[in-house]
């Protein structure tokens, strides 16, 4: 009978829907088969293309499965760090692996991190480790200029962040990412700390007044310079090296390297154990693996880092021998971060 068939079909549809819902509820997010399988949950802001091979290699070597959660540049540093803070009372992650240090210090101050001194990090200089061992730094990236070699001849290459104000370059031909987010914010904070608030404010205000192009992220700076839409821009070494290695007509200039100049910012990766981590033993094994000297070398080879903190051959993409860095402890840069972000928001978002 038609009505019975209709009812049967309706019940069938409802059952399918219930099954889909049940699947979502019954299959938990991360703990499936936990008794049989050892797992470690890693939250990382490192690009997936670089971090995923590390996870796969670790899995093959240790037999521990990595469940990663990745951040993306588009979320403006508001992704995983805020997730970790929100999860503080019921942590889901075991390890936080960041491509920089300031957000890790935010987590330390929010009491999200637990101390752990890895034996693998014994050869890492003390300045790259937190005094309380809540985080450890390794392999760094530097803030550099990417320059389009079709648009600028070598005699016109910029060599200082003050070249953002040089009249020989039209404002819109220069690019930076919004200095309120990501590594550009950290760089800006370092400048605020080193130069003092007034001089740093004047630098950025003048740059803004010149209508330099402020874009969505460091990768956009790279792309626009590589495409010839801008003459040069401030970005990270990993972004710029990607363009160099893919044969674009660009070159890398490390700013402020002369004797009377301040140097550039080198931003190490940081790794930290989460307080109350669900899988602490596995987390420590992973951190030992990541902090191993061989891993730092492998990350240089992969193109994620260019400036190792140990005595390891650096990336051939850019000559960083004797690189001069802004002489500041990381904590000082971090302390300047929030005031700098607030000031720069007033300057650049209007």
């Amino acid at each position: 009978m038609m009505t019975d068939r209709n009812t049967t079909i309706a019940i069938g549809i409802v059952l399918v829907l219930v099954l889909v819902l049940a699947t979502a509820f019954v299959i938990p997010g991360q703990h499936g088969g936990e008794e049989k399988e050892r797992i470690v949950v890693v939250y990382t802001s490192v690009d997936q293309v670089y971090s995923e091979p590390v996870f796969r290699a670790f899995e093959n070597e240790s037999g521990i499965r990595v469940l990663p959660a990745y951040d993306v540049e588009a979320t403006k540093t508001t992704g995983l760090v805020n997730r970790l803070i929100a999860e503080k009372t019921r942590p889901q992650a075991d390890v936080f692996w960041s491509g920089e240090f300031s957000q890790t210090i935010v987590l330390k101050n929010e009491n999200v991190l637990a101390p752990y001194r890895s034996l693998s990090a014994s050869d890492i200089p003390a300045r790259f480790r937190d005094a309380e061992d809540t985080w450890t730094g390794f392999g760094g990236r530097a803030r550099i200029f990417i320059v389009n070699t079709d648009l600028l001849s070598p005699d016109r290459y910029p060599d200082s962040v003050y070249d953002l104000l040089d009249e020989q370059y039209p404002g819109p031909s220069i690019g930076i990412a919004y200095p309120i987010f990501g590594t550009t914010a950290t760089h800006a904070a370092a400048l605020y700390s080193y130069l003092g608030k007034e001089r740093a404010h004047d630098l950025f205000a003048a740059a803004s007044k010149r209508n330099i192009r402020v874009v969505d992220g460091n990768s956009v700076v790279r792309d626009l310079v590589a495409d010839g839409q801008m003459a040069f821009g401030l970005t990270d070494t990993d972004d710029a090296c990607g363009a160099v290695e893919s044969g674009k007509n660009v070159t890398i200039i490390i700013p402020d390297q002369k004797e009377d100049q301040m140097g550039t910012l080198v931003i190490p990766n940081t790794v930290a154990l989460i307080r109350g981590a669900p899988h602490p033993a596995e987390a420590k094994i992973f951190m030992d693996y990541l902090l191993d000297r061989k891993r730092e070398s492998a990350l240089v080879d992969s193109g994620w880092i260019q400036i190792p903190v140990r005595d390891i051959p650096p990336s051939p993409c850019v000559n960083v021998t004797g690189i001069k860095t802004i002489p500041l402890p990381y904590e000082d840069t971090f302390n300047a971060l929030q005031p700098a972000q607030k000031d720069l928001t007033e300057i650049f978002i209007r």
Partner: protein
Amino acid sequence: MDMPEVFRSIHTGHAPETILRLVATGLFFFLLLLPLAGLSCDLIQAILNGSSDIMVPLLLTPRRLGLLGASIGLASAVAGAGIIIGILFMSALTTTRRNLLYGILLLLLALAGIPPYIHALTWSEAFHSAAAVFPGVPSTGWLISFWVELMALLPLSLFLSWIAFASVDTRLTDAGRIVRSDLQVLFSITLPLAAPALGAAFGFVFLICCTDYSVPSLFGADVYALDIFAQFSASNSPSQAFLYALPLLLVTLIVMIACRRGIRTLAQTPDWLPVRHGTPPYYPGWFLALQRGAAAMVIVQIGVLFTGLILAIQGPEALITSILMAQNELMFSLFTALLVIVISVPLAYAAAGELSRPGIRGAAAWTITLIPLAVPAPLIGIGMITAGNLPVLSAVYPGLIMPALVSVVRFAPFAAIVLFIQKRFIDPALFDAAAVFTRNRADTLTRISLPLYAPGLVVSAGILAALTLAELGATLIVSPPGHATITMRIYNYLHYGSSSDVAGLCMMVTVLTLAVSTGTILAIWALSRHFTTGTGKSGT
């Protein structure tokens, strides 16, 4: 003491579907309020802790007022232009064959599933190429931002304009054509009748544009949404960011409530895809030129997008590799989209009834429905985690259902409003007749209610799938470790600079959305044919 309606229904022996409807309605509003409750908890905690900065966001400085004004201006211009193009384009399609119209609508829906940022990147490339030929073509600024945002939201604007046109009863326009010119019929009958739904379409596009910072920031235009993110990034305080979002929320509420007044006046009995008869409309030359201009803009948008993507794909091998690498993300995205539809549609169907209510109760329902639309996506995610940390909800977080739940919170309101519009279209006398002539409630549901609601359900499901596939901000916050969506993968490749992979994945999203939408429509069509066999066209 008054008993809540759901308990009163049980107590007084109301029909099971009444209880089910009340439970579903309650669940709909509960889910929508969940992240807001989480954010409120955070806010209260911040106040109790004596956070000195917490009230700063409530002071609207001239800078913030300027940004808010710029956001409203941009969103109004984009939504207005989008709807005007939609009107011109859809008025040109009034006599199009039904199958072709299906194809166009599916394509629009599929394009709406591509993140706006990808549209923007292809346009950025196009401007750069144009500047090489025509020096002086601007590459940044408000005009460019307006154009690119318009192009990025054009598929959705056109799709929503079609819904508005479909809300017009063709018998009324056919009657008008006897005594007036086609142009007069369009301006004096069709547009006034479609105005409420066009207003809602304007509201939707305005809302999406107002909360997007990614496209304007790519072209150097600063908007209020970016300021919210800047404050969030600087403070790491969700409650403070929520307070910063309040002015935007207020504007959104005003716009949507204004649109709601119009929607509530709808009382027509149209067919979503009617078979058109008679001679094609005759329009004067100037209007035909405008229609052709609109069609050209649509073709240019599709052309620029696909040309950009195809040029970026470095051969079929690269395409296959990028697709194979993203298999898991693809499956997870489809699963999430399916889950969002499964959860949202029944709840929105139930909540649509609540939106029809007059007075304070209806106003409250509309307010709760609209608020999540204006809250920045990451705050929805953070609010859901805060709520998920409560012991009663600990089974939900972390879990595969969480990415679906955040999309439900963000997009189920759209489904509820579409179904509310659909409900306004249906003649209540049909339900009265069904109550008299059908033998049981299952019969009424399967042979009368579902076929009548089918178009609205399909449209809701399509919009939900497209928006869920493109969602990033909230999903990223709550995705279970080890699971990522295709959009997360796309943005990861974007940062890496792998335009070939990005293009490949975007093409795949488009093709898949087309396939899934076509499959859904075919399934609904087959089911409705089955249900109506032997009973004539029970749905109409």
